[in-house]
């Protein structure tokens, strides 16, 4: 049976792992390959590297980090941030990435998703969606919840409906969706399971939940209530608030299958 995955995320700026709250107020969290190796040892099922500056001049630094990591952590690596062309994707794969995540460029040019999928296979294409809840009007009876897509690291509103974009991205060739709640990111208030469920009930590709983890029970909720196939977190792992094994044990206790790794008997 397919295991639900736990994925530490390494946000990288200027060659260091950083973490902010709602994408700002960055704090230095360490050396990327070092942290990556630690997580691999501690039972991470995959790793995600995001260049949060998404600046072309940082590309080389990020790829070098990926290459150094690929030499010592033999688990899947996803790379994102500033990937704009098929050539960018190819460079990331050649450096040792297994998957590449597209965000701003995919919204600007949806055909990029299709081209990357045709060239490298859809399993290598992750579309990352940064979604923010649109507060419904005070209308009685309550409209259904809506989320809009933001790009450029949460700095730019697109007006695009997150659910519609998720469906479209999967149709275009995304093999996986990385769904981040900007409202929850870095706030440790739990994943937006309503957002997750709205997307997982509409697509058949795997969905990675992101944004808001505080403790193991949030991971359980992302899978059980949100329908997520994988759950991503950053701060709580970087700061050793919770170990990956704690999270996996909580999932197991809730009857959710996980891969047996250090300290976890599946």
């Amino acid at each position, binding site marked *: *049976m*397919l*295991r*639900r*995955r736990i994925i530490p995320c390494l946000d990288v700026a200027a060659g260091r792992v950083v973490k902010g709250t709602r994408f700002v107020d960055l704090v230095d969290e360490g050396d990327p390959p070092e942290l990556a*190796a630690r997580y*691999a*040892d501690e039972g991470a*099922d995959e790793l995600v590297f995001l260049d949060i500056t998404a600046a072309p001049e940082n590309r080389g630094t990020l790829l070098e980090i990926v*290459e150094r990591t*690929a*030499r*010592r*952590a*033999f*688990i*899947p690596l996803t790379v994102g941030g500033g990937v704009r062309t098929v050539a960018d994707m*190819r460079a990331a*794969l*050649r*450096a*040792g*990435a*297994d*998957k590449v995540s597209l965000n701003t460029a995919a919204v600007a040019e949806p055909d990029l998703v299709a081209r990357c999928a045709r*060239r*490298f*296979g*859809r*399993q*290598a294409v992750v579309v990352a969606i940064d979604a923010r809840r649109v507060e419904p009007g005070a209308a009685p009876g309550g409209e259904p919840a809506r989320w809009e897509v933001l790009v450029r690291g949460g700095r730019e509103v697109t007006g695009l409906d997150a659910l519609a974009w998720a469906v479209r991205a999967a149709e275009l060739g995304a*093999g*996986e969706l990385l769904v981040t709640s900007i409202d929850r990111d870095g706030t440790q208030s739990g994943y937006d399971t309503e957002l997750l469920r709205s997307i997982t009930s509409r697509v*058949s*590709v*795997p969905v990675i939940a992101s944004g808001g983890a505080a403790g193991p029970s949030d991971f359980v909720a992302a899978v059980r209530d949100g329908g997520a*196939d*994988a759950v991503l977190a950053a701060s709580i792992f970087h700061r050793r608030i919770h170990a990956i094994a704690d999270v996996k044990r909580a999932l197991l206790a809730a009857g959710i299958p996980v*891969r*047996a*790794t250090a300290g976890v008997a*599946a």
Partner: protein
Amino acid sequence: MTAAAAPEPRAGLRVAVVDHGAGNLVSIEQALTFVGAEVRIATGPDDLAAAEAVVVPGVGAAAPAMRRLSRAGLVDPLLRWIALGRPYLGICLGLQLLFDASDEDGAATFGVIPGRTELLAGAPTLPHIGWNQVERRREHALFSGLADGTDLYFVHSYAGRPRGVSAEAVTLAETEHGGRFVSAIDRGNVLGVQFHPERSGGAGLRLLGNFVRWAAALTAGAGAERSPVGAGGTAGGD
């Protein structure tokens, strides 16, 4: 798993890793090097000349891979390699290429193992991405030291389905994702795995180490009179 948790490295088998242009070769190169192989990336037939074992990795669709292999002049040498009984490991797409054809894009593939590459039927999510249990149908040196049902990493939507009288005989392991599919095959000198051992942590490294030892034993057993791959022989499987 990182290097520290992995099995003991083993000396110097010369392994050609075939490059058909579809991306990440770093992982497989690093993982094989880690278990003691001497890796050379093969972009043309000459790169197979000195090799003792061949690994064909890869993800994605069959048609572009076949086109690139053909353009590189590698299809016939690989078929000869297999026909000569030399050690071959196909990973993911490298396994799927062994079958007759792929439903993904209709491409005709090596035709070494009877059967087709088909979409995973009944899968709750596609692509099938993540760690899943590999359940053995038989014992094989490839899985030595790994518990039956070990979790290994998959990323694919299609899988080869062996057909005909040999179907059961070539099925080495199966995995469940909606339905059962064949996740490892073996036929003499030819091994294929649908999962990615190079991305499966310590368990994957152990499996690759097993492959290197198995290939070394096979090569030693074949003796010194073996004819070189470049020098004739019939192309094609049996």
